[in-house]
């Protein structure tokens, strides 16, 4: 019996972003089918796992680090993943998520939860994870191995990066 090659463990994470990068990931279409033959998707918005797993081979991180929860998750991503990829402009530069950076957090929360016609009131502040002063690109919190830019990155670019990694070739975008 031939030995089945061990599948790589792939995680995708959604931090402070719009999930557009994940949409673009889904746009890999039939490549997704090829992909699942080579990888196990062990964590992500598409997977019902609450805790970030151990021994992840590749982790795609979408979005900026914008609150304490993101920061905690970023830490466990780094300590449990071999390769961390900044996935899309928000993770690479802060992008749209960081456009709030010039507004003080207090004004920001006031505008959203007190002044605007928000569905929830002031009490929601209690349950929100504390916002950082600034939304930060991922590499300012943890070490990042590969940068995959784009808003969102085109499926072709994601495919190029992932297939290169799966074939053990350097990623050249």
């Amino acid at each position, binding site marked *: 019996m031939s030995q089945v090659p061990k599948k790589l463990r792939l995680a995708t994470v959604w931090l402070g972003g719009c999930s557009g990068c994940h949409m673009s990931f889904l746009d890999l279409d039939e490549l997704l089918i090829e992909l699942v033959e080579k990888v196990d998707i062990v964590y992500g918005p598409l997977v019902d796992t609450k805790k970030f797993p151990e021994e992840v081979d590749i982790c795609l991180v979408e979005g900026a680090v914008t609150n*304490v929860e993101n*920061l*905690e998750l970023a*830490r466990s991503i780094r300590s449990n993943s071999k390769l961390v990829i900044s996935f899309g402009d928000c993770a690479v530069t802060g992008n749209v998520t960081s456009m709030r950076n010039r507004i*003080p*957090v*207090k004004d920001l*929360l006031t505008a959203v939860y007190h002044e605007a016609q928000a569905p929830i009131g002031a009490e929601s*502040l209690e349950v929100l994870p*504390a*916002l*950082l*002063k600034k939304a*930060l690109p991922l590499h*300012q*919190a*943890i070490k990042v191995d590969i940068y995959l830019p784009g808003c969102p990155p085109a499926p072709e670019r994601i495919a190029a990066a992932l297939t290169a990694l799966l074939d053990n070739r350097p990623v050249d975008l």
Partner: protein
Amino acid sequence: MNLTALTELAEQELQRQQDLKLRLFLCYSTPCISAGAEAVKVALEELIKEQDLAAQLEVVATGCMGPCSRGPLLRIVVAGEERTYEKVTPEQACEILLHGLAGNPIETGALPADIPFFARQTKIVLGNNGWIDPGKIEHSIARDGYAALAYVLHEMSPEEVCNEIKKSGLRGRGGGGYPAGVKWNLVRKSPAERKYVVANGDEGDPGAYMDRTIMESDPHRVLEGMAIAGYAVGAEQGYIYVRGEYPLAAARLTKAIRDAERCGLLGSRVLDSSFNFRIDLRVGAGAFVCGEETALMTSIMGRRGQPVPRPPYPAQSGLWGYPTLINNVESFANVAPILHRGADWFAGFGTEKSKGTKVFALCGEVVNSGLIEVPMGISLRDIVFEIGGGLPDGGQFKAAQTGGPSGGCIPAEYLDTPVDYESLKELGSIMGSGGLIVMNETSCMPDVAKFFMEFCMDESCGKCVPCRVGTVEMYELLKRITDGSAMLGDLETLEELCGLVQETSLCGLGMTAPNPVLNTLKYYRAEYLAHIEENCCPAGVCQLDQVPLLKLPEHAAELAIFKEEN
């Protein structure tokens, strides 16, 4: 005025001074005025009026005498013996006058004549300080003012003048230390229908006031040096650029220029020769970068004070594209003595590569702070512990900062280093224009570096990216180190940025802005590491009340501030 008339005027004035029974020299420079010299002057004048003594004595409001921390200073000479009184009140001053006039001067309040502060100094540039009224041209002339110019105009060729300066070994006193004679010759040899001479009086280093004092105390010395330079390089127009924060220097220079023009010592046909030389004053608008020569010249030309890339150097293409000789005020103040007493005499002072003397503004944690002039090559230890009298209140010497925001801190183990251009550079600092700040053990080095970086950040003109943005990013990193939120990688980033800004900035401001950081990292790296790794400021200066980003989740209590206060 010609040479004979100049000599006559000098003799007349000397005679007048000798005929007086007593001359009181009151230090009337900015530090002493702020210490109360004005009231002393008023009291003395009233007393003279009251007792009708005007025919027998005079009060000379002089420039800086040096020991500024002891002002107001009053000096008298009785029977050939000089006495300098410190911290003089109006009442004491009247007594000093009356006793001095009677020939038995009081001793209370008099500084001993042999204290190292005076004894260890060598005064070439500041030779007239404390002995003349800067507002009276005849005082200056009586002490050989314009004699060197008269000699040069009638006895020397421009080439000879340049060579004499070259032979003297005088190097630029603005900080760079470029050989003055070489620069003069470059401008002299540049073919052009018009040339300019510029004196840089835009002294901006924090804590430095050498040039201000020279301009305030002996303006004619600077003008004479510029005129000699004009003759030597073939220029008919000079500009003296004074920073806007020095109104007294500007006022005294304006009067000096007018007086010299009236006497025929500046203007057309100077001293009845065929040499014409006008000097105009330009007042800066408060930008540190205008001390950089190319930015200074753009400012003189009426444009936004920003540097332009060199080459071409000012000696080739300066003001309005013409060859321009630009030297520091202190450099020009050395010129007349060199030509008056000879290059060999001047070269007798100092070390092999750094000739003459250097004026320093000694300040910080030192008993005698003030303005000093010392021969090049003197050790830092002599300056701090002999002339400066050591540190007050039993303080421990930690470092001496030279060169302001472009310089660095010299630690205690190098106290015996001779003070000259090369030695200081080897230590990672620079001679600079002459600020010298003594620090004790309560100074935190990353905090000092942050102070200077903030200065450079505020003073960056914004023309080139490395300086405009690099100084801000370096400041942010230093802020993190001193507030406790830094991570170890930050030190690496900081060092790399220092390299970039040093090597790629457009002008001297940016190129030297990282010096205080690099230099303190070299000697006090452990202090930086203590801040980052142990969250501890050894000098006890920094608050360190912030948390590194990655540790934020563990500081739930502090996190509340992100909800409430920000």
